[in-house]
């Protein structure tokens, strides 16, 4: 790791000021992605601004048609939140599928989406649920937030404070893990809203998370795995590496999308019985 100057921000305003003031400054939340990158010298910020001691950034608050989750909420907190489990069980499940227990105790929602790793799970949830990313400056729709590999719409001194997730009628996330790293080789989040269906894919896109309009259209007609029969995704623009070729990832997208739709329907059938 290259050396850096460490700054502990006491509040959001101070953190923003530090980002503007210091040369080549980067925010650190849980550090579960940034620290490994700094160790490998893939990242070498001159100044590190720690958000860890700022109070009130990890609240989880239900609203009428959405849940607001603070940027510093850990994956553990989201997974175990009674509010999230009740209102958006698919999101609680997704949080419990990130990394493993010790990583979930440190990693945060805001850190994950600001980093926008192409294999991260949260970006798929944000996109499929039509989330709004709330920052110190503005509200950014998820569709405009994820702009490419490790790239987002965030300005240099802009800080994510919370994410607002609209509730879905039905939703589920399915992930096919790399057997060694356990990262998503493909992850598919489907969400059925009152007016539309959204399908978001992580792990597979060479430019990061993306939606599949053909799947969404078919599912809007009929929200069932059968509606996706015969539909395929082109391998163009997908990642191919030693773990999985682009055509294999394309195949997995179809399989996991059908499984996700089935899981979303099954969950609703179960809760109807209760």
């Amino acid at each position, binding site marked *: 790791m290259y050396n*850096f100057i460490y700054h502990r921000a006491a509040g959001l305003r101070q953190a923003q000021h530090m980002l503007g003031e210091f040369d080549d400054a980067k925010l650190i939340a849980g550090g579960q992605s940034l620290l490994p990158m700094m160790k490998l010298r893939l990242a070498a910020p001159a100044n590190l601004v720690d958000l860890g001691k700022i109070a009130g950034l990890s609240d989880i608050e239900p609203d009428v048609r959405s849940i607001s989750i603070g940027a510093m909420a850990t994956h553990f907190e989201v997974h175990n939140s009674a509010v999230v489990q009740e209102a958006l069980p698919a999101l609680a499940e997704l949080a419990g599928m990130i990394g493993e227990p*010790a990583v979930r105790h440190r990693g945060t929602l805001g850190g994950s989406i600001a980093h926008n790793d192409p294999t991260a799970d949260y970006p798929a949830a944000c996109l499929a649920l039509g989330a709004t990313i709330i920052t110190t400056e503005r509200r950014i729709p998820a569709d405009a937030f994820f702009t490419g590999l490790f790239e987002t719409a965030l300005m240099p001194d802009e800080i994510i404070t919370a994410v607002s997730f609209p509730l879905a009628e039905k939703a589920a996330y399915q992930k096919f893990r790399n057997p060694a790293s356990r990262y998503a080789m493909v992850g598919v989040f489907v969400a059925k809203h009152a007016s539309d269906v959204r399908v978001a894919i992580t792990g597979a896109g060479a430019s990061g998370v993306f939606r599949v309009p053909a799947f969404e259209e078919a599912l809007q007609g009929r929200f069932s795995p059968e509606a996706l029969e015969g539909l395929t995704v082109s391998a163009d623009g997908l990642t191919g590496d030693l773990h999985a070729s682009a055509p294999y990832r394309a195949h997995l997208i179809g399989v996991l999308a059908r499984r996700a739709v089935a899981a979303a329907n099954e969950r609703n059938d179960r809760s109807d019985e209760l």
Partner: protein
Amino acid sequence: MPTVSLTVNGNPVHADIDPRTLLVQLLRENLRLTGTRVGCDTSQCGSCVVHMDGKAVKSCTVLTLQAEGTAITTIEGLALGETLHPMQQAFRDNHGLQCGFCTSGMIMTAVDMVRRKGHALDDHTIRRELEGNLCRCTGYHNIVKSIAAGARAMESADPLRRAAE
């Protein structure tokens, strides 16, 4: 150099450190608590797991400065005097180790697991929860057995021990 103040196994620690100092380095190199291991240094193997404010974390992927004001428990902080923690005793009784390198991380993860999942742990749960801890000797069978036994033993542990936790 920046200073850091935290508690390690109940003892206050104040140190001037290089900002790059990882929590595991502070524990091993400054405090000579070498029960916590560095296996992979990439947050995959889990041999560096310690508890930070009661939650398992990988101390190779936490800056010491991030741990300001927290309470850290390491494997050295589990036993009460000469009496092993029930989870340590269970690993001993069930031969839950071979070379022992991963063991402190396994035990710290196991104690955290019991706190979150309770005392009746089935094999499936234990194996899932061990996703972040690698053992390259045992094939995990006796580790899983140890954790199930340790979890049960923690339930009937003496009140002094339970109060300490």
